[in-house]
């Protein structure tokens, strides 16, 4: 078995046993990237020298028997909206940052270094994480490893595709309205959005501050648990980071949750759901029933479509504010010709931002502007409270909520780019989780007839990632989806 076929957990054990070195693991990852990424285009930058240097450092520690961390020698990819002070650019897949190099590491990047992970590169995304297909990247779209004609989902499409194509066993993404879970579903990997506040956002370039959360991608539930373990925890630099203890996610992972009451909201199985996705998800639910779980119909009356509406107001309002700083004054790209200061702002921003960013920034500015604030922004916040109440009520009677992660499997490149609203509805089942601040995971649960992966979304209450992972693992044990590798890995160039 090739090194790149190993899960992160297996790789970690093998590294500890010195079956191969961290340098060999890094080289295997770099070779896979070199071989595959011309077609997949998951990475915006690959730091081969830095990765090999870090791996060699880990090898020294391992050889000396020194503690080397939870992820000692495991190659990891980081979404390129997280700051790295390693000299690589942090781009957010936007022209406006103009090759900006962060003078500091994001909290999660510090955590990865402390746990011995070897960051090999930074992955593609929709510009500033705004999108559901990774087509809104200023540096070209990422393709779905299962079908290169299709999108990997987004906005963390690069991280999802990199893990799916086995270029790295682990990757970090960020999830504002489904940007981890939806690409995980479309690429057939596990992607988890932790509870808001579980992982520090310090150094994550903000899209929508009250919704953004960093989370792990892995091929298995245990791998996702491992990366969450390494990155979760309190950080005084993020006021919204919660000082709750981080449980040992791996210790009890194999213990099933029993009794298990699964809430099935009818809003997640409504008219917009692709019949094939519905069938595959139903099969997964049947597997849980066979494990003794009890299915309970619940209602989340404000989720789905109202949630999308509320989400696109809250997220764009915050984005219009967060992205105000990209103005060509203190860093980033400045237009070359301008009549005066205001003209410089206007030109730098119209030239530096892509269409989706422009749309969202303007929509948000509109929702916050005088005369519309009550009708749009404040209204959306009221609906947000209703959505959170829906979940709080549901969790009184069920342990988790399940449904499809995405209404469709991976769609074709270009299929939704002309219709922003159609693209927004890709997130119809994922946004409510962010609005309610709760945890959610997408786990692979089968394939369409065309061979496209389908994701099962599982949602639990705040700070119950340990249970969420155990519930996901119960199903994963019964299946072998993680063993399948996408066609791109097999095809030799």
């Amino acid at each position, binding site marked *: 078995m090739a090194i790149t076929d190993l899960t992160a957990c297996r790789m970690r054990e093998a590294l500890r046993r010195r079956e191969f070195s961290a340098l060999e693991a890094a080289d295997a990852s770099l070779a896979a990237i070199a071989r595959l990424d011309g077609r997949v285009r998951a990475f915006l930058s690959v730091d081969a020298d830095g990765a090999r240097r870090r791996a060699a450092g880990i090898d020294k520690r391992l050889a000396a028997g020194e503690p080397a961390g939870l992820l000692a020698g495991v190659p990891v990819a980081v979404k390129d909206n997280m700051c790295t002070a390693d000299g690589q650019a942090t781009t957010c897949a936007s022209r406006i940052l103009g090759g900006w190099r962060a003078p500091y590491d994001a909290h999660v990047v510090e955590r990865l270094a402390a746990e011995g992970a070897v960051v090999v590169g930074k992955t593609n995304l929709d510009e500033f994480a705004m999108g559901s297909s990774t087509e809104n990247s200023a540096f070209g779209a990422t393709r779905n490893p299962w079908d290169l004609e299709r999108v990997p989902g987004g906005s963390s499409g690069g991280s999802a595709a990199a893990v799916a194509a086995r270029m790295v066993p682990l990757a970090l993404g960020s999830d504002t309205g489904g940007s981890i879970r939806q690409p995980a579903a479309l690429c057939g990997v596990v992607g988890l959005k932790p509870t808001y506040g579980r992982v520090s956002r310090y150094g994550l370039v*903000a899209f929508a501050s009250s919704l953004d959360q960093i989370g792990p991608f892995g091929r298995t539930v245990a791998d996702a648990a491992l990366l969450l373990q390494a990155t979760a925890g309190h950080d005084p630099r993020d006021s919204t980071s919660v000082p709750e203890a981080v449980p040992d996610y791996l210790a009890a992972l194999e213990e099933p949750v029993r009794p298990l009451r699964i809430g099935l909201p009818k809003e997640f199985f409504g008219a917009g759901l692709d019949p094939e996705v519905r069938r595959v998800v139903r099969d997964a639910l049947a597997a849980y029933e066979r494990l003794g779980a009890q299915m309970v119909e619940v209602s989340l009356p404000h989720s789905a479509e109202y949630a999308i509406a509320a989400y696109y107001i809250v997220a764009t309002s915050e984005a219009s504010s967060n992205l105000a700083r990209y103005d060509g004054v203190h860093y980033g790209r400045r237009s070359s010709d301008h009549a005066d200061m205001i003209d410089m702002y206007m030109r730098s921003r119209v030239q530096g931002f892509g269409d989706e960013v422009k749309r969202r920034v303007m929509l948000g500015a509109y929702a916050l502007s005088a005369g519309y604030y009550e009708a749009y922004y404040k209204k959306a916040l009221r609906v947000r409270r209703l959505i959170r109440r829906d979940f709080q009520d549901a969790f009184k009677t069920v342990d988790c909520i399940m449904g499809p992660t995405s209404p469709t499997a991976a769609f074709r490149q270009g299929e939704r780019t002309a219709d922003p609203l159609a693209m927004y509805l890709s997130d119809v089942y994922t946004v409510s989780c962010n609005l309610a601040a709760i945890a959610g995971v997408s786990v692979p649960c089968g394939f369409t007839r065309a061979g496209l992966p389908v994701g099962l979304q599982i949602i639990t209450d705040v700070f119950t990632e340990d249970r969420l992972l155990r519930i996901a693992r119960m199903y994963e044990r019964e299946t072998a989806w993680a063993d399948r590798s996408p066609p791109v890995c097999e095809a030799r160039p």
Partner: protein
Amino acid sequence: MTAADLLPTIGLEVHMHLKTRTKLFCGCPVRYDARPNSCVCPVCLGMPGVLPVMNGRAVELAVRMALALGCAIPDLAKWDRKHYYYPDLPKNYQISEYDQPLGIGGFLDVETPRGAVRVGITRVHLEEDAGKLMHDERGGNFSVVDLNRTGTPLLEIVSEPDIHGAEDARAYAEALRQLAVYLGVGDCHLQLGQMRFEPNVSLRIGTGPDGKPRYTPISEIKNLNSFRSVERAVVFELARHRQEYVANPAEYTLENLGKETRGWRDDEGVSFLQRSKEEAHDYRYFPEPDLVPFVPDRAWVEAVRATVPELPQGRRRRFISEYGLPEYDAGVLTAERGVADFFEKVAGLVKDPKTASNWMMQDVMRVLNERKAGIADLGMTPEALAELVSLVKQGAINRNKGTEVFGKMLASGKPAGEIVRQDGLAQVADAGAVEAFVDQALAANARTVEDYKGGKKAALGRLMGEAMKASGGKANPQLVREILLRKLGG
């Protein structure tokens, strides 16, 4: 309606830097003398990915000021983002407090030449300052930005429109400064830009048909940085309003024209229009998602309240009633907290407030004025002064020698007793010795003695002076007088 009936109606927005070591949202030091862009970090530079974390000391100082102003501290305060594009504001939004400030509804009593005036305080809130934008002095077509000031904790104090004249506006501004310095909330050095003023000026023009008062448009004058400019700008603006209104009473009203923003050219002494109502900014306030609300614990609020010292006006009144000090002296001794504390310490130690006040006014304040120094730089403790005052009270030295010893204490740092001993300054109170000095004086000044006996009573003072001189200034003046009178035959 005549021009005389137009009532000046003024509210003041005052910004002051809080006395913290670090900025509001990051650990960068607050400095005024540093190399440009050297007190900065990713957070205050507004770099991608950074987050603000609230400085707890700044919150405490803000609450202390709010409490001293008699404000209520609401159960929840939160911060909001205020958006506008400007190169000295790296995020292009300012973190401020919009609708739920730290303090609401207080007042400040201000002493004016016409007596005390109570000015209502609408709100007190905590926000971040912007950086500095400067224009190229060599006439180049560019401006430059220094972000050292960016993120400095800034307290905004908004008054009710309770001020009715330019002098009062100035007195209010000065009283706020005195209070902030007294509380240790801010240093308020105006020349460093630590305190800035924005008067809102209009004239009340009687009442409308609905019985409600009517006003001329409100002019907000931005960014004044001295008390003098506050007074001058308000004088100018009131006169301008009067003129505009008299020329066009039907049009020049608040309902018609709303609020306008004006600048002030100090060198020319004129204000100028910056923005009319139509051009007003749309700040798009919304709750700052990166900061969490502040929910003050009531016990904490009371603990902060306990750190609020007695305030200048109250202390002044107490010095008059409790210590029997003259109004002027009480005013001088309470103008600065350090001086008042020093005085009370001395008064307590010598158990004689009037004498202590005498020393403060005649000796301590004189030296401070000469040196243009603060009480902290006096170089003498209240205990040391109290020892000196006691020596005089006990008759160990006389009052004049006391001033001499005071000077020597400042110069040498030695205690009073030691100086008196070493320099042999102890008062001579032995009747025999004093009589010898008197005899000496009488013998050497026969003509003066004649003058006295001839009815010139003022001659007694000259003879006393001569006797004191003979004693080297050390004789007990009371005893000199007694013996002199006896020898001169009553």
